[in-house]
């Protein structure tokens, strides 16, 4: 159970109380910044849904749609998923998610189109940006996966990926699957289906524009 205790200034004194967020007895946040506490609440709630959703496998990944096929970019936070998703959307791809690839029992990817969490250089906090403000549109129908891009940013690197087998691609997805431990059998049923007709590329990348160009070339 989540508990949210809103602090704020007491009218009779100058004492400003902390805002607190708990999950059962575990304190998740203690700060005077209410906005931060609410963001933490949203994030933890999403994580809970991602771990225990019935019949759905949530992979920590960015997703866009292109010509009725999905590009999935698995990766941890700070790996540059949102940057790639933003560039792809600006290039005309449909926005599916910058956080989770939600896969059903047939291996199709469903949209999870929350506002993009854009992080400016050297900043920890993200700013939520609506996809429409980027000139993009959210996708609405489930798509088969055509391409999986496993990458992270390294300044000056050139995009020269190697192609992985489906089995190795499965490990790349499983390494980012929220319910890998709690719903292993479901992940073992879903992810191979998602990779049925997908190509999996892995490599470090430099600036996003080069990768975006290569991705769109693959998708056409």
């Amino acid at each position: 159970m989540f508990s949210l205790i809103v602090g704020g200034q007491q009218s009779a004194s100058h004492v400003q109380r902390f805002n607190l967020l708990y999950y059962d007895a575990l304190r998740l946040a203690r700060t005077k910044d209410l906005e931060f506490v609410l963001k933490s609440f949203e994030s933890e709630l999403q994580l809970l849904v991602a771990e225990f959703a019935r019949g759905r496998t949530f992979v920590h990944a960015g997703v866009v749609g292109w010509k009725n096929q999905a590009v999935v970019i698995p990766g941890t936070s700070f790996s540059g998923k949102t940057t790639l998703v933003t560039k792809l959307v600006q290039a005309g791809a449909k926005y599916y998610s910058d956080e989770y690839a939600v896969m059903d029992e047939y291996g199709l990817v469903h949209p999870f189109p929350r506002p993009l969490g854009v992080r400016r250089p050297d900043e920890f906090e993200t700013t939520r940006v609506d996809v429409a403000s980027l000139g993009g549109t959210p996708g609405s129908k489930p798509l088969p996966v055509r391409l999986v891009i496993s990458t992270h940013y390294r300044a000056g690197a050139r995009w020269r990926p190697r192609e992985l087998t489906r089995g190795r691609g499965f490990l790349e997805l499983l390494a980012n699957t929220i319910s890998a431990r709690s719903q292993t059998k479901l992940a073992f049923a879903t992810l191979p289906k998602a990779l049925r007709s997908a190509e999996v590329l892995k490599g470090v990348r430099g600036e996003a524009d080069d990768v975006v160009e290569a991705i769109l070339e693959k998708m056409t």
Partner: protein
Amino acid sequence: MKRANGHSLPKARKDDLVTRQITGELLVYDLKRHKAFCLNNTAATIWKNCNGKRTVSDLAATLSNDQESPTDEKVIWLALDQLEKSYLLETRATRPVGLPAISRRSLIRAGILTAVTLPLVTMITSPVAAQGATPITDVVCTGRHQSDPGGCGNNPCSPPAGSKCINGPGNTCKCA
């Protein structure tokens, strides 16, 4: 499985594993250690035939038959080494005295490159759910205690990027 001469024969582990065969590869999940493996066709064929009754020679013959190409026993030993390190064997084969450690590189160097693909077992550690979480700040992490339900949580924390909220000294948590 032990033979009369005291030597044991390799036997694949069956308990607490989830497996799925895909084209040319076998996916395995160890529910006890939370590790996932991808076995290429060679490693998978050898593993599936480790029944505690087949010798290394038998396994080499089985693989030769399966892949329609002669197989050196060193290829089997390489696979067995990898399978043992991955805790995928219940019983391992007794190694002949004097048999040196075998690596993929040593086989290639020795010219043992047949039409049979060398065995390969790739492993990852399965993530805990919190690793997929949105990061927490250092302040939030250090405000947690190891004795809290869920402990330090193992959430990614930033800054520094790439660190996690893990156990610190005593009952504390720290980003590292």
